[in-house]
């Protein structure tokens, strides 16, 4: 029988780690929503906070996890203020479809971006990869056309 050493013991139990993982994923998604809106439309954290009706520092504490309470209402408010919908966070596995049989490339448009089709389990999208990064992931660097 293998003796359990201190090093093999995780700091937190399975239930605690499940909660921490959920909190981390939610905050990751909210931060990406805020960052996306800032990069795309120049909407600052202060503007998002203003729209929700709270101070910028309070929103910042919420986004980095130092605020004790994170309610569904707060999550909804941040998504609303960044013009996101919970459906936008639907991150099911996607499948790249190559309509012309050319490695997923469909066309180059005038903005020098690459478009290609992506199909998820629930819907088909045409995605545009702004950074010419050919990897496809359900991520906000990718814009829905």
């Amino acid at each position: 029988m293998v003796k359990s050493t201190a090093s093999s013991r995780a700091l937190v139990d399975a239930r605690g780690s499940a909660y921490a993982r959920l909190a981390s994923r939610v905050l990751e998604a909210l931060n990406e929503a805020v960052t996306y809106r800032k990069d795309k439309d120049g909407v600052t954290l202060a503007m998002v906070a203003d729209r929700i009706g709270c101070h910028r520092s309070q929103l910042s504490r919420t986004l980095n996890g130092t605020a004790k309470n994170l309610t569904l209402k707060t999550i909804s408010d941040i998504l609303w203020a960044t013009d996101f919908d919970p459906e936008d966070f639907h991150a099911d596995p996607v499948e790249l479809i190559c309509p012309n049989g050319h490695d997923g490339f469909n066309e180059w448009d005038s903005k020098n971006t690459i478009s290609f089709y992506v199909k998820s389990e629930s819907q088909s999208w045409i995605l545009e990869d702004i950074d010419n990064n050919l990897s496809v992931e359900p991520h906000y660097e990718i814009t829905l056309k």
Partner: protein
Amino acid sequence: MLRTLTESIEAGEISPVAVRLGPREQRHRMLYWTKEFEEWCREVGKTSSNSLVSIDGQINQAFADFISGRPMTGMTKCDPPKGGGVWKLHTPDLRLFGWPPTQNALILAAGEFKRALKGRGSPTYVELGKQVVNKRKQLRLGEALYGEIYSIFPRAR
């Protein structure tokens, strides 16, 4: 003469961190802790937190996000060095310091509460950095890697 990671592990100076990963998370990076840092983590993990997640949960999540190659935005963050090749992991309440001996590997050697780093007469980032550099020299694992974050720690795809 320089030592290898394996030699340091066999000597009991460092060990892979004990971490709980999510059901679909895989190990993309290696994370080690020194004996003293492990003891510190186990001690502070028992203290209470005013943040969204308990201290032990924060530490485990920072470890899990790093090891699985997550982007680390939001609750956990990873900062490249400002000097001395010392890298920093953030949790809401803690700052954890270490160095990468090789690509996609990090050895954690020091940590402190964020609130303690702001108080008067408290340990500073410089002091904690020196602590990490001293440990690095003591372990004789060679220099830390420098560079842009994704060249040292490429993200998992």
